[in-house]
């Protein structure tokens, strides 16, 4: 008997492996970028502008995925772009997780005026269009890796806060918490030692999701030309350039887009796969 | 001449144990048959099999269900649905969840008449009113326009009973219709069902775990244990002298409300062991047969 659910369950294992594979590959490539990138990502050669990828006629040998309008090697730029992407993903993702989850825990467990203030803050925050807010922040903070990380944290902390708050509230009402309190543990102690381990699985799942979001936000910001700087190779700026020359040199858009696509997909499928693993019902 | 004839019906959990073991029973036209057994004996499963609403995790592995002469299990699904809808009806167990909370009461009674049997709306509404009167619901007009959550549990069960008789079915399956109700209301509802059955002349398969109910309403009964029919007899004969030891134990276990000093008599372990052995023997024979 084939049940649709068993099919999904089998897939859960598969997608966990595939996403780990891609992310692992990406991580390795990013680490070894200066050594494995065939060319200097910043080197321009106007004579070699808009060369197609190696399997098409007119391709320049050594430039596997072609060149952009300034003659820069697409493959090398993608490889170096991976560094930025993963760096942002890890740092911004973790920072957002930390801050958002902390606020969510405090609000959900301590309740009272702490909860009221934080909840109101979340409401106000959610009234902002996220992309616009991030663009605004970058304009204010100026370009740079630090600014991007701050921008991502400032915009997306509510994602963690809301979910963790709800979970903390649910857990806080449970019996094991009451018995911990009776045993004499202080409020913060209870929060850290009893509740935190139980919301950890959710936090991990959201973290992987957040890392995918961070990569996207960085790409959007560099697309709008507000990210690191116009010269540094980021997937977003490559996509921006590719969008402009889409009819003449489609490869400048396609390859970074596909890489970005696979990366974002991998992060979220990783999260989904982990969620299924953690879910006691499915097990 | 039996309106409903179940022959050697076997049903199992897909990839699991059997739930009904070659069940056979007959309900004559206009007759009331009781189906008793403890929880998990499979009583509801028989009713669901007849009405074609077995859960997807369950499969029929053998037997026939003859409704007015035609084997339902041999029919294609659409045809089977039509037949069941035209000839049979269900009085469900839980009045709270058996009515759609988003629809008013009226359409929930008249829908089958208009959509499936092709009645005009006016005729259907008139019929609904008449039925609500029959089940003694005051102000039928208001009730027809009301939503389920506005009415009490007892009222909802009356509506469900009325709804069951709407399309003039020849067979009604009542699946523990009083179990979910207050004790004070149970008696009224029982009397109501019995009265309507007598007036409309409908055959009734009454599923219950309560032997007291059976004695008041049914003419014949079947006793079920672990999906096997253990006894099949008239009510009079049963209460006078049950043949099977398990039936006897069941009868003895019924609390005597009139004599508080008489203790509780659970079914003896020996009887359980014996009947379990019967079931095991059946399964062994089924595997080889």
């Amino acid at each position: 008997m084939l049940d649709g659910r068993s099919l999904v369950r089998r897939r859960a294992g598969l997608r966990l492996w595939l996403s780990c594979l891609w992310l692992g590959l990406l991580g390795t490539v990013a680490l070894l970028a200066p050594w494995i990138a065939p060319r200097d990502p910043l080197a321009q050669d106007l004579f070699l502008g808009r060369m197609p990828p190696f399997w098409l006629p007119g391709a320049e040998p050594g430039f596997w995925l072609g060149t952009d309008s300034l003659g820069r090697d697409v493959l090398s730029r993608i490889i170096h772009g991976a560094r930025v992407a993963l760096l942002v993903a890890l740092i911004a993702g973790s920072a957002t997780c930390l801050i958002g989850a902390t606020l969510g825990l405090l609000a959900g467990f301590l309740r009272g005026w702490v909860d009221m203030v934080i909840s109101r803050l979340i409401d106000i925050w959610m009234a902002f269009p996220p992309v616009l807010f991030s663009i605004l922040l970058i304009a204010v903070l100026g370009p740079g890796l630090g600014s991007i990380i701050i921008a991502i944290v400032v915009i997306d902390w509510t994602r963690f806060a809301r979910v963790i708050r709800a979970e903390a509230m649910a857990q806080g009402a449970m019996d094991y918490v009451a018995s911990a309190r009776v045993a004499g543990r202080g409020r913060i102690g209870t929060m850290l030692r009893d509740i935190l381990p139980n919301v950890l699985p959710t936090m991990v799942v959201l973290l992987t999701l957040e890392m995918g979001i961070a990569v996207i936000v960085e790409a959007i910001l560099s697309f709008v030309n507000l990210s690191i700087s116009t010269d540094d190779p980021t997937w977003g700026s490559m996509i921006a350039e590719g969008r402009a020359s889409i009819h003449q040199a489609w490869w400048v858009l396609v390859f970074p887009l596909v890489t970005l696509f696979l990366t974002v997909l991998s992060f979220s499928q990783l999260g989904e796969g982990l969620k299924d693993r953690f879910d006691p019902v499915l097990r | 001449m039996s309106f409903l004839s179940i022959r050697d019906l076997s049903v199992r959990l897909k990839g699991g144990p059997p739930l009904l073991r070659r069940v056979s029973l007959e309900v004559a036209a206009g007759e009331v048959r009781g189906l008793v057994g403890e929880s998990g004996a499979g009583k509801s499963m028989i009713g669901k099999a007849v009405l074609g609403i077995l859960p997807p995790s369950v499969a029929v592995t053998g037997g026939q269900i003859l409704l007015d002469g035609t084997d339902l299990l041999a029919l294609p699904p659409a045809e089977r649905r039509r037949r069941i809808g035209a000839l049979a009806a269900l009085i469900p167990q839980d009045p709270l969840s058996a009515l759609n909370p988003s629809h008013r009461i009226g359409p929930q009674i008249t829908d089958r008449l208009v959509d499936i049997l092709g009645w005009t709306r006016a005729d259907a509404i008139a019929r609904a009113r008449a039925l609500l009167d029959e089940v003694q619901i005051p102000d039928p007009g208001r009730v027809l326009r009301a939503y389920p959550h506005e009415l009490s549990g007892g009222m909802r069960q009356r509506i469900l009973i009325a709804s069951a008789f709407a399309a003039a079915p020849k067979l009604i399956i009542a699946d523990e219709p009083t179990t979910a109700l207050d004790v004070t209301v149970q008696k009224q509802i029982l009397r109501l069902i019995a009265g309507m059955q007598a007036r409309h002349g409908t055959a009734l398969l009454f599923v219950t775990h309560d032997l007291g109910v059976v004695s008041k309403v049914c003419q014949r009964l079947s006793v079920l244990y672990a999906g096997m029919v253990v006894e099949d007899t008239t009510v009079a004969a049963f209460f006078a002298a049950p043949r099977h030891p398990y039936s006897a134990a069941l009868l003895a276990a019924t609390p005597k409300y009139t004599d508080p000093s008489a203790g509780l008599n659970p079914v003896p372990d020996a009887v359980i062991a014996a009947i379990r052995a019967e079931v095991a023997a059946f399964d062994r024979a089924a595997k080889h047969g």
Partner: protein
Amino acid sequence: MPFLRAILVRLFTTAITLAGVAVIVFVVIRVVPGNPIAMMLPPGATDADIARLSALYGLDKPLPAQFGIWLSGVMQGDFGTSITTRQPVLGLVLGRLPATLELSLMALAIAVLLGGAAALAGTRARGTRTEGAIDIANGMALSVPDFLWGLLLILLFGVLIPVFHISGRVTPSLDLPFTTNFYLIESILRLRLDLTADLLGHMFMPALALAIPLAAIIGQLLKQSLKEVMNLDYVTLARTKGYGETHVILHQALRNAVLPTLTLVGVQFTFLIGGTVIIERLFSYEGLGNMAIDAVINRDLPLIQGIVILFAVIFTAVNLIVDLLYAVLNPRLRHA
């Protein structure tokens, strides 16, 4: 009476939220390094020129004073003047609003259709391979944000198989006889269906990009809800009456399954509207989002403020409508 009180409380919290948004925006953009006025004037401008224009726009006063001036202006309907275009902010912003509204609503319609179809098909085919396939497709659509879908669509249907337009709101050479900026609606009302076709040809790609993630959410949630409802007793009872699977899903289960999904869809719709900022940029669509990005790049403070406030108002309005809709659709709440 309690109903009235609920409305008042709701209005009060909304006002606080909007005030909070206004304050935050105000503070954030005035921390901008670099004087916006200086950016606007030609390089040879003297300090005196800069000072004069700064005074004109009130940028030399202390922050709370500036906020007070702005707020009192807002009470009278004056949202200030755009630094880049010298026109009243309110007029500019309301001028671009219809374009973004039409785009968002079209995206919503597409999302509901696609998501609803996926949910219904998945429920009809439950327990089969088809359901598994739909689940996988859904999962992938969910994981990828509108930005990437937009780029993909540009590649596929703008370049590879050029069927739709990937730039602008309408073909520039066309003569438009409209009085409002609700081009799509007006073109239908005026029966200029040639214009409607042109507009739809431009709107379809951006709307689809916005719609896909929302469609996936609707598909997943609604299917889950439907499957739960399908196990309930009243659905089983309907089957005994002779109704087939399709009728049971559509007439018995659907209305009860929609309710739980409504609130989440409302929140996700506000995210969709937020997504118009980047999607409009991607497709060069002349809406609010596109103007917003330009405003930020040009440091046009009053315009930025006006746009952010407008977005905030739209979001809160959407939340309000969703809550009202929920109360209306739920018979239990209606009579309570």
